[in-house]
């Protein structure tokens, strides 16, 4: 999942008695798992929260091209280059589905792009970390896409129809990404001592940032409770983080790499792995713009947008001229 700290609009969950008739009918549909569609009535706060959440997810797909793009030109074989290109192309495609889903809520792609570029909207903190060696590309697929899938699989059942349908398509491709990532890092872990060192370095650097992707603990948050009642959030952040740790630790062991956190230990009583909580001070710093790559990532996107203005204007003008010529010919 690429949405963290999405602020839920509103004042928290209302009881049935506090709801207006429209709100009751709306909540009733959600409780019965009937999808909300763009033309249906919905509370303003539901709409606003979804725009934030889908927008943040879409922006993450787009900014997420950059750390991987950083290695496309240095991919060590033709096959790895092709796989990485296919993956990055998928991610841009995910951005496209999600921007389309957001558009059904009444916000244009250009509007939310501007909101990303001027800092009103965020993207996932993970993409503010650098990709420093080739094994990072494997680790990104394995850990980052792996963490994203944890959240996206339940979101296939989310209450908003266009979002749910986008998630179903996205999940299919994400599982391929995760498998190729694991395969890439496995090659490194089983390779020469230098390759193994790259794999370990990537795991050590990306482990805690991956855990941060789920966001801080939200078990007592009223906002999360509202999002969960609306079924635009299905599990708590801690539940998903634990699930991710439980799934990933045996994979690390299978790779023969050292665990990236000395606090990882099987807890027989809980039936889960214990682990060290990420450094949330670092997380909030990254969110505030002080991560290792925040400034560069955003300026890359801003330059792409600004430098491309003449292309967008040129193509729009051509479409207008063409339409005018066709009109004149009629």
């Amino acid at each position, binding site marked *: 999942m690429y949405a963290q700290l999405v602020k839920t609009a509103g004042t928290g969950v209302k009881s049935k008695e506090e709801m207006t008739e429209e709100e009751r009918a709306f909540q009733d549909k959600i409780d019965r798992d009937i999808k909300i569609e763009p033309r249906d009535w919905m509370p303003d706060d539901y709409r606003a929260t979804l725009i934030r959440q889908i927008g943040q997810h879409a922006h993450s797909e787009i900014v997420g091209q950059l750390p991987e793009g950083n290695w496309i*030109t240095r991919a060590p074989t*033709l096959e790895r280059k092709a796989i990485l290109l296919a993956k990055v*192309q998928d991610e841009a495609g995910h951005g496209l589905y999600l921007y389309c889903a957001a558009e059904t809520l009444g916000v244009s792609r250009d509007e939310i792009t501007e909101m990303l570029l001027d800092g009103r909207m965020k993207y996932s903190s993970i993409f503010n970390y650098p990709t420093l060696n080739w094994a990072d590309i494997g680790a990104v697929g394995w850990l980052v896409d792996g963490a994203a899938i944890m959240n996206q699989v339940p979101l296939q059942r989310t209450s908003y129809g266009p979002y749910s349908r986008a998630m179903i398509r996205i999940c299919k491709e994400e599982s391929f990404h995760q498998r190729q990532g694991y395969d890439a890092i496995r090659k490194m872990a089983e390779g020469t001592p*230098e390759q193994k060192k790259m794999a370990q370095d990537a795991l050590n650097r990306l482990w805690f940032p991956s855990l941060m992707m789920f966001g801080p603990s939200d078990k007592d948050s009223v906002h999360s409770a509202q999002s969960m009642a609306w079924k635009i959030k299905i599990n708590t952040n801690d539940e998903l983080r634990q699930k991710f740790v439980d799934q990933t630790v045996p994979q690390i062991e299978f790779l023969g790499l050292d665990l990236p956190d000395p606090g990882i230990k099987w807890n027989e009583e809980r039936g889960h792995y214990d682990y060290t909580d990420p450094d949330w001070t670092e997380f909030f710093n990254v969110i505030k713009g002080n991560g290792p790559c925040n400034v560069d990532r955003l300026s890359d*996107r801003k330059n792409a947008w600004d430098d491309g203005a003449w292309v967008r204007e040129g193509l729009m003008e051509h479409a207008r001229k063409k339409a005018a010529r066709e009109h004149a010919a009629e």
Partner: protein
Amino acid sequence: MVEVDKQALLQFLLRMGDNTLVLGHRVSEWCGHSPVLEEDIALANTALDLIGQTQLWLGYAAEVQGEGKTADDLAFLRDAWDFRNLLLVELPNGDFGRTLMRQFLFDAWHAIILGRLMKSSDTTVAEIAEKASKEVAYHLERSADTVVGLGDGTQESHDRMQAALDYLWPYVGEMFDSDEADEQMVAAGISVNPATLREEYGALVGRVLSEATLTIPESRFAHKGGRTGYMHTEHLGHLLCTMQWLPRAYPGCQW
């Protein structure tokens, strides 16, 4: 069938494969930096097709060479003087307009030659050409549409496209150049004389550029040296530095 000179066939295959490798690499440099999301997707898709074609051309080249090498060895372990791509494809991306103009000028030639190669006497060449030509038909449609859209767009987009055409046009002539290796390919029915493609190319490019309201430069001067390897531009070495760094820094690894 005429006995085929192995070295001539290898030259021909390297020329095809190095074009797609080097252009695929250049296009992939755009990742995440396009003017609009649909273009990011289209550029990645084009690069992906070209790299896929490279695997086929260089894979066959390695087989013909017969030294137990792979397509990856040819891509990542040769130095600039062994590359046989057109100078056009190694030129830096420049702005989006130059990238798309370069793509169009190449796609038009690529589509035409692949059409001929589908009838090659060498069945592997014919099969690769058949697969690639489907992809390239789409590349050409898209790059031609974009060249028209931007040429016949705003004053600024028109001026940028004209500047791109002026810069790139002197690199077009090399496509129709030929040498002894080409003569042998013609004799064996494997490929065609590049000079014979010029007329069809001129008609296709002329039609699109005229629709784009752009003017083809009058000079027929052509920079040469890429397809023979005699003299590449300074740009190729830098491209190879990036592309080949990892396998050269850590030789013998499996990736």
